[in-house]
């Protein structure tokens, strides 16, 4: 039997989910969870060397190869963080062993759903995978069963399902547009077939379809004004899930949107999807930047920061062209790494302080130097200060926009600066000043956090030419 990495990224999490649901005992399951994500990461990496031919259901090209490697890598580091985080939750009694068992199984189901959404070649299958990912995260957000967690999960569920329903309507319309050209049946939903023939589709139908898809998947990306579920879901669920939501699930929804954008780009009569994405991106950026100022909950603060950055990424892809796409991809990678690192730090901070309220924590760099300075470094990175990776990617987005649309670039820079000031204002009261709250040492594992930050730092200083060439190649695919 030959080794098939494509099946590997699906079968490993699926099998692990079944196994984790059956096994009791926190120590074994946490290790098994890490082992499964390691194996998935290795399968994903081998996709660079063994590239299966596209079938009617699955497809691997350079675009989703990048997304899969990023997803499985952050999934792997988050599982390490999750082991120490969940251990603490068990000790304090916030979670009971049956819930931990459920949590680990759901973690693997979520990895499975995200991988499936990324490698699906069939637009119907992609929709099913995004829906599965939504349902698993709803269950995880509600896992603490407190008032706030239930409210957050209910809100996420209702808004997420409505978004998903609109996306399905858009998917049906794409099929309707494809049917007269491609013919009835399976082929009219296969993306690699659609993109070759999209030039002949009815442009009016394709336009309406894209509006539905943008609203539907845009809800999942967390674009304002469709973002209402996002801060609650981030704040009330377990922190490893906040890290995966911010770092990965938002990207998956954006990826779905990009696939449809590529379809529209082929059709000369269809509307340009760019301006719509640029508008939503800028609204999200400016809105979320202002929202940073009045946050009192630390996880809510960084949830709004995620909306801000998804706005920048959507804006960059909306501008299009080789340079802006390159900047968008680079920014997305940097944001995933940095934001999950921040959530790793925030998870431990909330555990040692016993609260998520910013007012009840202070002087973190004095009471917990490693954790505190790790958080400071993460916020410096996410705010876009040199010489870290996000500075480089934001600089690329801004400079490529200045060359083409100076007016938009001014709004962009304004939003970024407002966000930067907001973040530092909050960071100041968390990390410096008079120490507040408990000062008990934390038994955290710092490896995942500092691995991510080191990568972001390295990318800001020096990008290997091979990586640059790879990103350029993918940016070229996006058109």
């Amino acid at each position, binding site marked *: 039997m030959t080794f098939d990495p494509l099946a590997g990224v699906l079968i490993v999490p699926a099998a692990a989910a079944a196994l984790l649901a059956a096994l009791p005992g926190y120590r074994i399951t946490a290790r098994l969870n890490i082992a499964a994500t390691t194996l998935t990461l290795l399968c994903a990496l081998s996709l660079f060397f063994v590239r299966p031919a596209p079938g009617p259901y699955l497809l691997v090209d350079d675009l989703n190869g990048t997304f899969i490697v990023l997803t499985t890598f952050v999934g792997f580091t988050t599982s390490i963080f999750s082991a120490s985080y969940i251990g603490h939750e068990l000790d304090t009694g916030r979670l009971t062993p049956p819930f931990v068992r459920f949590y680990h199984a759901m973690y693997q189901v979520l990895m499975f759903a995200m991988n499936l959404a990324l490698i699906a070649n069939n637009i119907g299958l992609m929709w099913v995978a995004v829906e599965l990912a939504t349902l698993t995260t709803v269950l995880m957000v509600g896992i603490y069963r407190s008032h706030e967690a239930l409210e957050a999960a*209910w809100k996420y569920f209702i808004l997420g399902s409505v978004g998903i329903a609109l996306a399905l309507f858009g998917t049906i319309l794409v099929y309707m547009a494809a049917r007269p050209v491609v013919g009835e049946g399976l082929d009219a939903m296969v993306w690699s077939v659609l993109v070759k023939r999209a030039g002949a589709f009815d442009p009016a139908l394709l336009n309406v379809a894209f509006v539905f898809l943008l609203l539907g998947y845009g809800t999942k990306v967390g674009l304002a004004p469709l973002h209402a579920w996002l801060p609650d879901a981030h704040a009330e669920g377990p922190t490893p899930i906040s890290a995966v939501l911010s770092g990965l699930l938002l990207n998956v929804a954006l990826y779905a949107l990009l696939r449809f954008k590529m379809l529209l780009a082929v059709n000369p009569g269809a509307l340009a999807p760019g301006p719509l994405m640029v508008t939503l991106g800028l609204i999200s950026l400016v809105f979320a930047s202002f929202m940073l100022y009045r946050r009192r909950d630390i996880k809510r603060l960084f949830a709004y920061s995620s909306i801000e950055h998804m706005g920048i990424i959507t804006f960059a892809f909306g501008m299009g062209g080789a340079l802006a796409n390159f900047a968008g991809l680079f920014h997305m990678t940097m944001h995933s790494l940095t934001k999950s690192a921040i959530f790793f730090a925030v998870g431990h901070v909330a555990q040692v302080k016993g609260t998520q309220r910013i007012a009840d924590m202070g002087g973190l760099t004095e009471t917990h130097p490693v954790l505190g300075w790790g958080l400071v470094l993460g916020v410096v990175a996410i705010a876009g200060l040199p010489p870290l990776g996000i500075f480089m990617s934001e600089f690329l987005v801004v400079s490529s926009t200045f060359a083409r649309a100076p007016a938009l670039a001014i709004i962009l820079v304004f939003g970024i600066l407002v966000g930067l000031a907001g973040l530092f204002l909050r960071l100041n009261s968390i990390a410096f000043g008079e120490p507040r709250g408990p000062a008990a040492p934390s038994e955290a594992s710092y490896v995942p956090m500092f691995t991510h930050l080191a990568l972001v730092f390295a990318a800001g200083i020096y990008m290997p030419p091979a990586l640059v060439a790879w990103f350029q190649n993918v940016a070229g695919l996006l058109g």
Partner: protein
Amino acid sequence: MHGIAFDVAHLLAGSLVLLSFLELYQDRLYALLNIFALHALVLATSVAWQAFIQDAPHLYVTALIALTFKAIVIPTALHRIIVRLGIHREIEKVVGVGTAMLAGIGLVALSMVVMLRVTQEADPLAREDLAFALSVVLLGLLMMVTRRNAVSQVVGFMSLENGLVLAATGAKGMPLVVEISVAFSILIAFIVIGIFLFRIRERFDTVDVQVLDQFRGERR
């Protein structure tokens, strides 16, 4: 080609829109559930009719799923939940009946204008089906917005999904993958919601979503 096939499909899709309007102004949960069951029954008939005129036997499966799950199993289960929770009397509405109906009429007009205009080249059966389907989707959405009660929001969501199934079956030759996934998603969604309803009950002794709003994290 029009003839009886077209007329019956038209009649069934039109009835779905009409039933969506009926759902919109119900103020008792039992009545709402009965109308939803009828909604699902008409959907099942419509899907079966599509299966017959398109000569697509796999659509009968979809019709059967709609019939058993949405017209029988789910209304019965929701009925039991209502009895158990003792909340059968009134539904809290956010806006009055008149306003909701006017908004509904506006949404139907909107979907007719949009869909009929963009699908001029598609065959008439598919395009009218699509226009009706979008109306049902939007009316379901409106119902979710105008209700505070968790059970009636769930019913709104399910009639929205009925609209999606109508659209999917109207698109001739659409692969089975999607129909089954829709049916499955409703099943899963229902399980999730069921769990939530019981958890909400455990915690608050009410299924009025307004009470949940008091626990929003932002107000802390």
